[in-house]
């Protein structure tokens, strides 16, 4: 009888442990949603018209945030033209916490002219940053928030 009781208690406890093991840790919750995580990445320059001045990438929750500053060697044409529609650069996220990336659009900040950007992704999850519309300008200031899928187990 005592042995049966021990087995029953053990089974019940094991069940509870299993349930709790599959729950999210408080520290993981903090790291994912409440912490600014440095995100490993590389940024490669695109078209020769652009000089990349600075870039940074952080990971918070299900989003990465890109800040990019670049300069064009010559002004883009008003309204854009096919020769202006070239990649500014390529962002490759190498952080193993990020497992998938979604395309996004954004616009310029603090530059003067209206500029819109496309952040397109390919099969290798490389984000191509491209000016998609602009009047005459040489400065490119991008602030973009891009949705990503994350691997919780890597935090």
């Amino acid at each position, binding site marked *: 009888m*005592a042995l049966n*009781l021990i087995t029953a208690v053990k089974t019940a406890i094991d069940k509870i*442990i299993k349930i*709790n093991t599959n*729950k999210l840790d408080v520290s993981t*919750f903090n790291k994912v949603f409440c912490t600014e995580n440095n995100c490993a990445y590389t940024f490669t320059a695109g078209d020769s018209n652009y000089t990349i001045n600075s870039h940074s990438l952080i990971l918070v929750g299900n989003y990465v945030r890109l800040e990019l500053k670049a300069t064009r060697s010559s002004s883009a044409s008003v309204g854009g033209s096919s020769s202006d529609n070239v990649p500014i650069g390529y962002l490759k996220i190498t952080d193993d916490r990020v497992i998938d990336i979604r395309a996004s659009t954004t616009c310029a900040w603090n530059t003067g*002219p209206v500029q819109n950007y496309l952040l397109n992704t390919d099969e290798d999850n490389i984000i191509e940053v491209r000016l998609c519309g602009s009047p005459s300008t040489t400065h490119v200031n991008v602030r973009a928030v891009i949705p990503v899928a994350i691997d919780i187990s890597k935090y």
Partner: protein
Amino acid sequence: MSVNLIDVIKTAINKTVNLSKNKVNKSAIDKLYTQYNLTTKVDLGSNYSSATTTATLIGNYLRIYVNATRSSATNDGNITNEQVCTLVIITDKILDIYNAAGISATIGDLANFYTTDCIKSGSIITIPVYISATAGAITEVNFYINLLVRLNPDAYL
């Protein structure tokens, strides 16, 4: 025998309690995916006569909607870096906020907006909102800006 049984139960229960201590409750996840409408206060920029705004928080995203009226229409492309308003939001759910840019929502108008120098002091967040540029004559300013935020764990766990 009964002493052994009590020891087994005690050990197992302690193990379970310790495991549970560091786990997130379902309510934290529910809170994370709940939409919170935050109270906002607007201080108008000098060229604006009125404004209404809303601010909603879902997960790590704070979405701000602004509808403001300019005292006179802009000319085509002649507005750069003009302050529309400063928003004040009071919440204990946000630890930090990241500036962002957005585009106009009014049909027919083309303008870009951005926030800069957001300040978080205690539970008060101050968000200056600017037009970065226009490409058309605009009187009604109407847009959404999505800001990435870091959440305050004390408000969720």
